[in-house]
């Protein structure tokens, strides 16, 4: 799997710009959360409880870093998060 933000040159030091080289985790997923924005009341519970910080405070999912654990779907009191099979999104999965 190609790394997304790999520098051209191998780094010479152990001191990197923080957060810079983190490779995505989205390919771990077998199911993905899909938020129904009509039902969502923006209470922020899914943003708060996501172990990966993959939901922004504005309630949009970062599919590069969501691992598909399903915690957001369980915590949502409005039933606004559905877990959908990743295979249905296979074409979106292809990497450049």
């Amino acid at each position, binding site marked *: 799997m190609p790394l997304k933000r790999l520098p051209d040159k191998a*780094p010479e030091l*152990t001191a*990197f710009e*923080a*957060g*810079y*080289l*983190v*490779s*995505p*985790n989205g390919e*771990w*997923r077998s199911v993905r959360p899909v938020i129904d924005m009509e039902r969502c009341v923006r*209470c*922020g*519970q899914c*943003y*708060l*409880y*996501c*172990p*990966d*910080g993959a939901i922004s*405070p504005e309630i949009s999912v970062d599919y590069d*870093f969501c*691992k*598909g*654990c*399903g*915690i957001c*779907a*369980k*915590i949502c009191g409005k039933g606004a998060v559905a*877990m959908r099979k990743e295979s249905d999104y296979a074409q979106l999965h292809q990497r450049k």
Partner: protein
Amino acid sequence: MSARDLDAREFFFGHKACAGCGGSLAVRIALKVLGERTVAVLPAGCMSAVGFNFPQLAFTNNALITPFAAAASVMTGIEAGLRRRSVKNVRVVGFAGDGGTADIGLQALSGAIDRGDNILYICYDNEAYMNTGIQKSGLTPHGARTTTTPHKGSRRPKKDMLAIVAANGVNYTASASIGYLDDYMRKIKKAAGITGAKYIHVLAPCPTGWGVNTDETVEIAREAVDVGFWPLREYENGTWITNRAPSRPQDLERHIKRQGRFKIEKRYQED
């Protein structure tokens, strides 16, 4: 505290913890409460293993790994170094596992408390040595199967870390759960405002080691409080306070039975 009071930035992001990992949620939220001017100190354990993947770093604040036994001592050294250099408004926070805290790191923690060092030590308790493959620790509860207690489960009670640090003379201590983040966030914020040694013990279920689904960790952590398995308590100035009394003790058995680690094969069952 609620979600709105948090720093909107992520300081623990892109980590390689298993999906649904409770420990990673505990670290992520603590750093969002404490903010950028925080040095995070992590001994060997899952959170260091999933946070520092050379040449990658999942922390955007300063963070470093310590030898397994040394988390509290390294925190002491960093705090002293910052003071010596007159660096102001920087907090030193530790994230150590249950093994790293209640077993191998206990004397370092005791020393830091005894010296009254100005540190915030957070134990994320997943109730076994997860990073090396689910071995029993001093915080594995009685009856839980691990790879070193594979048949009948642990025969020992869980050590009471809150009582231990209180007996050591800690300035502030509290139990918390990733199932009740508002309470956890409030305690971190409170501890950050107290000078001296602070200790927060947060229950952080591990789907991989507990035999629960990845979407169940928050629910299990909440339920553990509700059924009386993990009371939320606080200790300050020599007094204990209970923050949340068990609301449904009748569900204790169901709570235990839904976790794979408590399923004991018939031939190993006693009475």
